[in-house]
């Protein structure tokens, strides 16, 4: 039964990954990425890694989706802005078949699958992972640490150094983002003037625009973009 669930989740993961690549609307791609994270979280839950599933659902499906939406609110969810069109055209002028990338992907995938052949079977009690420090943690943490959840005692106490490093890495990520984005701020980047101030003045306006509907156009430019979007939708339907 569990293997059925595994297969169903993995199949859905593969379908979602394909959808992320194929879909042209960036908003839909972001949504698919969120779905992908949720499916991974389900997979982690099936594998009894509840803590990891928790993190994946909150960070992967929650916060990173919101961050990508915030980016879309700035750059738009359709590949219609001039700078994007230029890059799209310049890459598409020589129509070539992606044989070399396909080759690289297939070879890398083949090597990875070959690598898994040497791995010990999943869940086997004789695996090296279960015979190194794990038995000590499982048997002794009850009276050494006294915390019922072994994951917590391993993370915070036995592996306290590692967790401190991880916390520092998270902090460093924030410092990196702050340095990157504050040095860009105030400079004339990605045509803020062309988009008009209303576009970026309040976040929620941008978000409604990312949804591509229900927005009373603050400037004629945005209205035109919307119309084009509608026409395309109609054509597809």
């Amino acid at each position, binding site marked *: 039964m569990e293997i059925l669930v595994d297969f169903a989740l993995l199949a859905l993961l593969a379908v979602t990954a394909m959808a992320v690549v194929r879909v042209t609307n960036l908003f839909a791609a972001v949504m698919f990425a969120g779905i992908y994270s949720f499916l991974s979280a389900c997979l982690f839950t099936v594998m009894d890694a509840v803590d990891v599933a928790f993190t994946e659902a909150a960070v992967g499906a929650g*916060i990173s989706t919101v961050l990508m939406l915030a980016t879309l609110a700035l750059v738009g969810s359709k590949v219609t802005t001039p700078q994007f069109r230029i890059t799209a055209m310049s890459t598409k002028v020589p129509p070539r078949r992606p044989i070399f990338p396909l080759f690289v992907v297939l070879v890398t995938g083949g090597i990875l699958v070959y690598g898994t052949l040497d791995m010990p079977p999943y869940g086997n009690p004789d695996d090296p992972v279960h015979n190194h420090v794990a038995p000590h943690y499982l048997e002794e943490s009850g009276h050494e640490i006294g915390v019922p*959840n072994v994951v917590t005692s391993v993370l915070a106490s036995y592996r306290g150094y590692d*967790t401190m490093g991880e*916390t520092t890495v998270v902090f460093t990520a924030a410092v990196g983002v702050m340095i990157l984005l504050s040095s860009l701020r105030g400079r004339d980047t990605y045509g803020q003037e062309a988009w008009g101030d209303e576009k970026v003045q309040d976040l929620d306006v941008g978000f409604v625009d990312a949804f591509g509907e229900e927005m009373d156009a603050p400037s004629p430019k945005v209205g035109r973009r919307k119309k084009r979007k509608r026409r395309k939708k109609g054509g597809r339907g």
Partner: protein
Amino acid sequence: MSDQVILRVATKIIVPTILLYALYVQFHGDFGPGGGFQAGVIFAAGIILYSLVFGLRRTQKVLPSWVARLAASTGVLIYAGTGVVALLKGGKFLDYSVLAHDPEHGQHLGILFVEIGVMITVLGVMITIFYFFAARGREDL
């Protein structure tokens, strides 16, 4: 999005629950799944949800940008500080057993402080990153 009544009312109900749940995940981490990282992320998600519906300006009245930045660094300080206190009490760095008379109590205390440090850093970092993304192109923030 602040003119959408259903979103606004639903958010007002959900956000306190999310924040409370984050604290539950934090302090119940010793017994069930969860811990500082997850709690921090859930707390930040609650704040971010509020900000999506009610706008950045109103959120920053509750939780200014500098508070989030301060939290991000304070958490690391609390974590490392716990280790230093253990050092001063005659143990090894991050050896919580010396924090209290009973080694097991010391471990409990150490894990509590360390997890609080992780939570504060993570929520500060997540909110800071979100603020910086959301405030792109705005001069007033």
